[in-house]
């Protein structure tokens, strides 16, 4: 009896097992496993509304969801997006864009010039509160509209027919085409925004026109994108899904990368660079990016209003030491204000003493300080460096303080939390020296050099004010010829370096961990990696 029961149970058990094995084999035969890119990022998007976005993380995701008139390829080169082609009038201010006839929204609607008109007007409407609206102040009347002085209808963007969009600019801007790849220049689906209001970004409502659509988003967990079949180039998109993970803890992210749970991550813990270089050499990609690491002098105040003091302090810094020893080779020494790597600008201007030996520079610095009344026989120079609290900023400041000690300069360090630091820079109380960093919004020298303009209240941290510099920047703004414009901008940069209101310490590099299984991933100066070109080897 007992034996019979046992046999029966065993028979049922094996039948069930057999069935499951069978069904699994059957399933595997029907459809191949979806191709998924598990992508680690430093954080989550604060918003998926292109008009509320601010960060690089948001930019990376928005580029997958929405496509503007212009977009970027895997090497971060500008290529036509929704616009198939365009022409510019001789004044350089009126652009005529021909849209792709096959451009569609993810719900099947045809994408029209009106979707761009709607999006640009919404961007500039004061009620939207778009933090980055001022990037597109290049559009005619944009600034006045954004400040409530003109109605949105006055914006220089209009549809000419079903496939033609005309954009009029405030002044010629050779960088305008690169601005069109920015997240502020994406088209938006008018009907879904009017129906759902600010909830249009929820997965069940959002309508997108990029290579991917939003499937789900749980903050601090993951954001899942799936391939958009309505995308005009969908035939060449290999990925079925792209999953973004928000991983703030760089060490934990490294472990997850090593376990194969994520296939890429856009940072490494600096203290583990040695380990990464020796164990993950094939996966570790370091390449210069368009970011600068600066110390601003408060040029409103003595003694930092004296060019000699600023030059002396800048000269005495061993930038190779900072890049190699403090940052483990993941930064480059900075000798120019505009980081190298902007194609339209060529090689940037550099400080005059770039190739001078460090000891000679130190002697020269002492001489300059003595002329300014500091050093032996004069006053003692005491300075304070303010920076946001982090291991690397602190190590950098300590090293700089040590280098200045050789000049007889006494340095105090003052670290605050990141938000307090940014609030401090914004409020502009008097200071000695303060850290800041800058990544361009679009790759153009103007997007760095405008940081030294005296009318750039918010971002000219050094409070630098130089009439010649301002005049050069205005000339460059009006210049329609790219060659002449480049020459003027080079002249402006040389002036800025000679004056040294901002001491350039380093230029950033992007540091990525990329699994060898990820194909189509290319290093580039913008550190931009569209999923459209990626595939995952099994």
């Amino acid at each position, binding site marked *: 009896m007992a034996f019979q029961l046992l046999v029966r149970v065993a028979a049922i058990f094996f039948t069930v097992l057999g069935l499951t094995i069978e069904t699994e084999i059957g399933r595997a035969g029907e459809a191949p496993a979806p191709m998924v890119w598990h992508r680690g990022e430093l954080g*989550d998007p*604060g*918003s*998926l*509304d292109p008009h*509320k976005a*601010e*960060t690089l993380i948001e930019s990376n995701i928005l580029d997958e969801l929405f496509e503007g008139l212009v977009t970027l390829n895997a090497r971060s080169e500008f290529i036509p997006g929704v616009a198939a082609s365009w022409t510019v009038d001789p004044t350089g201010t009126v652009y005529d864009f021909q849209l792709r006839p096959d451009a569609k929204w993810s719900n099947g609607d045809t994408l029209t010039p009106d979707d761009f008109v709607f999006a640009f007007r919404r961007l500039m409407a*004061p*009620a939207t*509160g*778009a*933090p980055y*609206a*001022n990037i597109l102040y290049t559009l005619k009347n944009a600034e006045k509209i*954004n*400040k409530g002085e003109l109605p949105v209808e006055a914006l220089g963007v209009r549809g000419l027919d079903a496939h033609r969009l005309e954009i009029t600019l405030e002044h010629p801007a050779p960088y305008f085409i690169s601005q069109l790849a920015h997240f502020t220049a994406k088209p938006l689906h008018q009907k879904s925004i009017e129906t759902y209001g*600010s909830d249009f*970004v*929820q997965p069940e409502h959002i309508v997108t026109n990029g290579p991917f659509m939003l499937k789900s988003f*749980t*903050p*601090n*967990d*993951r954001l899942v994108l799936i391939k958009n079949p309505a995308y005009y180039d969908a035939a060449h998109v290999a990925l079925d899904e792209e999953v973004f*993970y*928000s*991983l*703030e*803890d760089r*060490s*934990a992210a490294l*472990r*997850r990368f*090593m*376990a194969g*749970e994520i296939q890429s991550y856009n940072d490494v813990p600096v203290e583990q660079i040695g380990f990464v270089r020796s164990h993950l050499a094939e996966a570790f990609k370091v390449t210069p990016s368009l970011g600068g690491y600066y110390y601003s002098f408060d040029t409103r105040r003595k003694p930092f209003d004296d060019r000699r003091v600023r030059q002396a302090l800048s000269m005495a810094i061993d930038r190779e030491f900072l890049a190699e020893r403090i940052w483990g080779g993941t930064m480059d020494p900075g000798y120019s204000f505009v980081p190298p790597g902007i194609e339209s600008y060529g090689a940037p201007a550099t400080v005059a003493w770039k190739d001078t030996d460090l000891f000679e520079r130190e002697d020269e610095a002492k001489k300059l300080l003595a002329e300014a009344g500091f050093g032996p026989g004069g006053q003692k120079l005491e300075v304070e460096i303010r920076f946001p609290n982090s291991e690397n900023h602190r190590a950098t400041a300590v090293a700089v303080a040590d280098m200045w000690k050789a000049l007889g300069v006494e340095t105090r360090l003052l670290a*605050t*939390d*990141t*938000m*307090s630091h*940014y*609030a*401090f*820079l*914004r409020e502009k109380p008097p200071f000695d020296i303060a850290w*800041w*960093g*800058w990544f361009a919004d679009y790759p153009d020298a103007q997007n760095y050099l405008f940081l030294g303009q005296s009318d750039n*209240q*918010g*971002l000219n941290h050094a409070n630098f004010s130089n009439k010649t510099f301002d005049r050069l920047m205005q000339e460059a703004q009006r210049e329609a010829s790219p060659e002449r414009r480049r020459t003027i901008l080079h002249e402006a940069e040389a002036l800025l370096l000679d004056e040294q209101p901002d001491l350039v310490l380093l230029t950033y590099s992007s540091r990525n961990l990329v699994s060898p299984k990820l194909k189509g991933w290319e290093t580039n100066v913008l550190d931009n990696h569209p999923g459209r070109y990626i595939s995952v080897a099994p």
Partner: protein
Amino acid sequence: MLRFFFARVAIAVPTLLIIIALAFFLMRLAPGGPFDSARALDPEIAKNLRHIYKLDRPLLEQFWFYLQSLAHGDFGPSLHWRDFTVNQLFATALPISMALGTKAMLLAVLAGTALGLGGAMSKSQIGPRIVDGAALFGIVLPVFVVAPLLQLGFGLTLHILPVGGWNDGAWQNQILPVITLALPQIAIVARLMQAALRDALAMPHIRTLRAFGMPGLHIYSHALRAAFPPVVSYLGLAAANVLTGSVIVETIFGIPGMGRYFVDGALGRDYTLVMGTVVVVAAAVLLFNLIVDLVLAWLDPRVRYESRPG
């Protein structure tokens, strides 16, 4: 008992109000605001944003607004997670933290009690010392050391558990976080339990039971009841902490729980998010204190009578 309950609730409500007021005004003293970032906003745009979020109103008026919406159970929109309200964020995060926390606390009570009981029952001197030593180790070993070690051991070396991620709450993803959360609690519960049991075993009524020749199990069940109050007092506060999420555990294991909102909110000056977490944690602490009081009163009738007015 009912009167005891209402007396406690009557104290809890004003306490919560005071906490909310303190948090609200203290937070505004911190330099910077939710719209500060590496790229300073155009002053005009910043003004616009403050207007949209009503941050340009007088502070007292903002506080009044906040209390009003709070009375309706509305924590307001998050200033950083701009596509979500704080309620929406908590609706996904709180159940996750509570699920992990509950498992960790159960594990802590079971393992801690077992260890403490084992130590107290041991006839030799070595038993209690082992428990004390192990407990001390569990208490001093920081979570940010334990968690990576577990990830390295089980995830990267043995390949039997995922290193991190939530994966919609798959059990494999919960094991390491639960162990990490539970370890320090096991240690503390074991120590408390061992000490309380030893005191209890020396009490006159236990000696009487022994003298009557009662079986060991019977004696320990009595001793446990006497030993529970200090452990329960501790567990209340610990549960309030563990159930509302741990920022370190959640960050290292990549878990979308409540813990990360405390720190992200404070560092990002997300005023509504910070207020929301303060309210939730304060409410949890008050609630668990109330539960502890009730359990203690049930375990030990003297508590009930002593707290009775008059």
